[in-house]
């Protein structure tokens, strides 16, 4: 399998072709793997994430553009302006497949455009176009402008939040899919890159078409028959909101509570029954189709938005106590339009509410808004202010860590972030594998690098995974501290493989119907590179290890492998287990076991022996390679 990247210099407005070495394709597979490999030559403490010398990688998955099931995801990578660390953010939609049809496997963006610009990639040829007509436009307007000029094109773009370099700004794929976390939108904004448009009329080669079709059909059918996948299809990720609440594991009121009465109104089932789901929408080649287009047109405020995901409904709705779906869907639309990460925005709103409650913020700081838990009147104006960076919005736009630094006092204690990234809506205090996975996640406490859902033991597939990884099905217990390192590492390995080949982890690591052996088949049929499941998972570990190495180079050590202060020091009311916390001691135990399993030293640095084992010997910290 040959891969070709485009290096696009935004300062010079020049492009060149970068062939990817065959050995790197074999070792890193594609997508997130190739992104990590290419960025590893460049990323360093000297690179300002928002400066002209930072690079952004856009890397298609190795299966993007093929009929392999749920194979529409691609990865973006850069040094995060929010965390200062390595950032991978993956996104669905159709951009990845279109890029491959345009004959390009990925893009390396360097430099910084003098004037706002749009990149147009038509069958591999790049044009630089002035973004003046759409600078300041929201994402919906931008997509519509693009569609008016390039029919059927796909687009990545930022909204006003990214233009203003808000550190919670995301990059949107199409109208409704987001590479949300870590502030990539701000990096685009700093480069004055408004959008990338792609059209492709070429083809994507497949090594064994018949086998790929056979494997795809079998896996699609298996997914269609799985009950978890069926919930995802019917109700989206928001279909798990009510059950998470019923398990007393839903972060509410800035992680002070684990349950809220009346959350059913925001659950995926209610969104369907209330008629807010306009239609389902599948990413490229995904017949699971968990994404949906939401429309409210019978009540004010009317809205049109994508998702609406569990994380969004939990962060903007349940967590803020705002349980009116019409308000939360409007908030979701505004985040889509302005290009804001819904998790970070929800977290910032809840942090501000708590500051208001504790008297650190008053009406004169909030432009007259009384930021009270459950007040549905404040959510929309707050989001408007964040996107515009006006008043209180200026304080919140860079995330809760920076907001707490500015506000001072003890407000950092309820800034629910680690490393500068707001935590996803999982209560890690009662999910110990998640606690470890979040603590060691290269980009911060978030679910999209390894989401070890199997620890809950929901369903036969999950229990089978735990049994095979740990040797003991009783380890499928979220409160248990036993064998968490093994569980996390297996999920990490497979997650990295999925990101590399472009498979959605909702198909693999949620229902657990699709396993490593299926990915081996799909990847082998598409690429001609037939790996054993062990080799495949080792490729995943290689990617995880290289990402860790980059972070170590950027100054990360074991003291950064932690969770937000609140989760380590305070328990949640109404939690599944009374008094549950992710204590210092607990995290120390979990991370030490995890380092040992990986072959990293006590400071969490990959040892030479580990690097040799995963095939990264030349990347060692002591090597001449930067």
């Amino acid at each position: 399998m040959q891969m070709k990247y485009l290096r696009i210099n935004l300062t010079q407005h020049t492009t060149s072709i970068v062939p990817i070495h065959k050995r790197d394709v074999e070792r890193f597979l594609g997508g997130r793997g190739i992104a990590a490999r290419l960025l590893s030559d460049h990323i360093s403490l000297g690179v300002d994430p928002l400066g002209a010398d930072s690079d952004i990688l856009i890397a298609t998955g190795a299966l993007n553009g093929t009929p392999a099931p749920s194979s529409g995801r691609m990865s973006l990578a850069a040094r995060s302006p929010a965390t200062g660390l390595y950032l991978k953010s993956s996104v669905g939609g159709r951009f990845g497949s279109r890029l491959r049809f345009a004959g390009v496997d990925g893009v390396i963006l360097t430099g910084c455009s003098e004037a706002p610009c749009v990149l147009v990639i038509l069958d591999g040829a790049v044009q630089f176009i002035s973004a003046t007509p759409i600078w300041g436009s929201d994402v919906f307007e931008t997509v519509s402008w693009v569609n008016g000029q390039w029919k059927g094109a796909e687009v990545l773009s930022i909204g006003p939040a990214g233009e203003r370099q808000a550190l919670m700004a995301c990059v949107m794929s199409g109208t409704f899919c987001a590479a949300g976390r870590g502030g990539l939108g701000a990096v685009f904004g700093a480069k004055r890159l408004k959008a990338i448009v792609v059209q492709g009329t070429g083809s994507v080669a497949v090594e064994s078409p018949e086998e790929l079709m056979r494997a795809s059909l079998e896996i699609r059918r298996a997914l269609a028959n799985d009950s978890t996948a069926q919930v995802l299809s019917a109700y989206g990720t928001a279909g798990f909101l009510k059950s998470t609440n019923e398990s007393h594991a839903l972060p509410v009121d800035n992680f002070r509570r684990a349950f809220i009465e009346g959350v059913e109104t925001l659950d995926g089932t209610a969104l369907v029954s209330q008629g807010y789901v306009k239609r389902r929408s599948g990413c490229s080649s995904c017949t699971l189709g968990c994404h949906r287009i939401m429309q409210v047109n019978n009540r004010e405020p009317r809205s049109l938005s994508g998702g609406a995901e569990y994380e969004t409904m939990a962060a903007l709705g349940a967590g803020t106590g705002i349980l009116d779906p019409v308000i939360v869907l409007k908030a979701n639309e505004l985040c889509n339009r302005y290009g804001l990460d819904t998790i970070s925005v929800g977290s910032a709103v809840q942090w501000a509410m708590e500051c208001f409650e504790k008297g650190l913020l008053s009406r004169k700081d909030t432009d007259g808004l009384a930021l009270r838990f459950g007040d549905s009147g404040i959510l929309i104006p707050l989001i408007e202010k964040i996107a515009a960076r006006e008043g209180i919005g200026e304080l919140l736009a860079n995330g809760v860590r920076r907001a707490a630094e500015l506000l001072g006092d003890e407000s950092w204690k309820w800034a629910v972030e680690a490393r500068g990234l707001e935590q996803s809506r999982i209560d890690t205090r009662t999910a110990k594998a998640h606690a470890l996975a979040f603590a060691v996640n290269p980009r911060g406490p978030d679910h999209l690098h390894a989401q070890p859902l199997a620890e809950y033991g929901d369903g036969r597939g999950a229990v089978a995974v735990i049994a095979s990884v740990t040797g003991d099905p009783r380890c499928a217990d979220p409160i248990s501290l036993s064998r968490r390192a093994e569980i996390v590492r297996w999920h990490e390995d497979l997650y990295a493989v999925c990101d590399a080949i472009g498979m959605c982890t909702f198909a693999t690591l949620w229902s657990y119907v699709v396993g490593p052996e299926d990915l081996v088949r799909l990847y082998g049929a598409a690429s001609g590179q037939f790996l054993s499941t062990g080799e495949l998972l080792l490729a995943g570990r290689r990617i995880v290890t290289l990402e860790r190495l980059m972070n170590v180079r950027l100054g990360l050590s074991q003291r950064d492998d932690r969770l937000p202060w609140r989760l380590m020091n305070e328990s949640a009311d109404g939690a599944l287990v009374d008094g549950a916390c992710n204590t210092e001691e607990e995290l120390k135990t979990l991370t030490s076991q995890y380092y040992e399993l990986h072959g990293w030293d006590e400071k969490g640095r990959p040892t030479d022996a580990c690097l040799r084992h995963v095939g990264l010997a030349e990347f060692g910290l002591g090597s001449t390679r930067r």
Partner: protein
Amino acid sequence: MKRLVFDPEACILCESCVLACSLAHEGAVSLSRSRIVVTEAIHLHGTMAHVCRQCKDTPCVQSCPVDALIQDKGTGAISVNRERCVACGACETACPFGGIRIDQKRRDVLVCDLCSGDPRCVQVCIPGALSFSDKGNIPCK
């Protein structure tokens, strides 16, 4: 006669049918080489599939100036005599449904051949937007 029947309500625009069709016919995946095209009808408001409907009055066959198109009497599928076809585009213009297309780059005609009675697009369409059935309410003569 069995036809490809499309349910716009069930389609989620994942393009699985398009990807599978081109792979099955070309051995490589390509949007521009698929015999079926699925589009958003009006921005976000619905979906449309453009694929051969095996019409009885065959405007494509009738319009062909070089007699390169033939309809199979049993299945209704249109086949192309590639030696005769000059890719003039008359069939594309004549078809009211966008069911037959010219690939301008390769100068040839793309039309559904029903995959010998087991269409790949239907196989991959788990949401059930496509079916191969004689019970469709497709407007065609």
